[in-house]
């Protein structure tokens, strides 16, 4: 089956990102395809490389980056939600005249159209939120 995953909450404050991660991992290990993981709303906060969670706890952002690398996952952060929350890549930094960028490895910033497209192309879109 071809899945798309939507993550609507940021790391740690809500379970959503953890649940989405475990779901994605399980789907992949059972041979399914996960064609995109889309981060919307506070979910975009999963895409910053600047977190320093405590050493004895899971590193949610890095875990997504590693899963993406191992499985060639498409992690997409919504541009509109990212602009509101300050998740920035090099292009956005230039476009909006910011003095820094903070996007994590494996994540890319793109439009909401990527979410709708995922809904159309996937057999199932599974969302994780509050």
């Amino acid at each position, binding site marked *: 089956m071809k899945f798309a995953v*939507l993550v*609507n909450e940021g790391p740690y404050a809500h379970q959503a990102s953890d649940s989405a991660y475990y779901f994605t991992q399980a789907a992949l290990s059972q041979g399914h395809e996960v064609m995109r993981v889309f981060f*919307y*709303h506070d979910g975009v906060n999963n895409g910053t490389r600047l977190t320093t969670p405590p050493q004895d706890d899971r590193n949610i952002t890095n875990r997504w980056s590693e899963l993406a690398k191992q499985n060639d996952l498409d992690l997409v952060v919504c541009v*509109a*939600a990212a602009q509101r929350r300050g998740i920035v890549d090099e292009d956005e930094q230039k476009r909006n005249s910011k003095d820094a960028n903070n996007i994590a490895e494996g994540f890319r910033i793109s*439009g*909401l*159209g990527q*979410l*709708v*497209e995922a*809904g*159309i*192309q996937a057999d199932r*879109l599974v*969302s994780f*939120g509050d």
Partner: protein
Amino acid sequence: MSEDTNQTSGTVKKFLYVNRRAPHGTNYAQEGLEVALIGAAFEQDVTLAFIDDGVFQLKKDQDTSDIGTKNFSATYGALGDYDVQKAYVEQESLDARGLTGDDLMPLVYEDEDDDWEEKPMIHIISAEEMREIIDQSDVVLNF
């Protein structure tokens, strides 16, 4: 299956956007509406549902000047221009909040199959009918 470069062309799915939160206090309502508008540009079959506090999103005469947030309620009026024709509002949610259909914005769309006649977009339905609507949808997004 061949890898088509434009895999969305021709496919029409029933998209349902479920709104359960009030328009202000959180920005789920505003960001949910943004997805609905973008979705309409993909020529899908888009329906909106309003349940629980989500029914407040459609309340008439919203004025946010005292709370300083953006009053995006006029955007619901634009949905008709984006080919959205159905907005289902749950009766039980209205009842529990002391609201009736008269409290809601009179959203309309122009029916291209009926000489562009203006028709109401909002349908007030029971919780049981709402379950049917959700069940019949292909893609359900929940805000």
